[in-house]
């Protein structure tokens, strides 16, 4: 029997994933825009800018997820 057949995903978890994806995309776009602004062609955001920005955004996302978890735990404890 397939063990994943009855697997259920909490809607809260699925919503969090949507939020993180969005947060990551916003962070990449924002950082890439800043990188482009400092480049020789400030009016064009390139794949290279997105690559650099994505690496930085991964770290930001990780911090945001940890912070979110910590504040959630604090609320539960209170």
């Amino acid at each position, binding site marked *: 029997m397939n063990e994943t057949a*009855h697997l*259920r995903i909490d*809607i809260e978890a*699925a*919503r969090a994933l*949507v*939020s993180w*994806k*969005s947060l990551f*995309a*916003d962070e990449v*776009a924002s950082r890439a*825009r800043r990188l482009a602004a400092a480049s020789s062609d400030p009016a*064009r*955001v390139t794949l290279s800018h997105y690559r650099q920005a994505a690496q930085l955004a991964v770290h930001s996302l990780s911090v945001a997820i940890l912070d979110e978890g910590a504040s959630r735990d604090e609320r539960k404890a209170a």
Partner: protein
Amino acid sequence: MTSEKPPKPESAKCDESISDVEDLWVRQFLKQFELNVLDATRRLPPNASASESQLATARAILATYRESGMEFESALELLGQAAVEWPSADVAWTDALNQRRFALIDKEVQGSLTPAENIELAGLTRIMREHVESEANLPMEGARALHRMLLQLESTGESD
């Protein structure tokens, strides 16, 4: 004959990029759409069929359009236009499309319009409205003639 490739025309270059406003809109739309798909999906039974999931997705698309400030009727028109134009875009308004619209209106009057035809009719109406309101179809020649006449009067001092 040179072996060098000619530079890409500016218009082609433009086609390969989007504005930051469009980029932001896409990201916001996708986030909202995903949340709406989740909301629509969680109301489905655990063993929902593919068609039930597809219907939930269609509801999520409409909900997202509504949340982006679009009237329900406009959202239907937009979907209808995309369906009529499928798979390309910018369909020119023709006699055939006009006749199809009249046929659908007849069916609407008779109360025999299917949901798919209802959306098709909305799309055809939108394309027709865009055609009628486009600059090429406005009565510009009369306005230009009047403008020329007024300029002529002004230059000959007859306007007072």
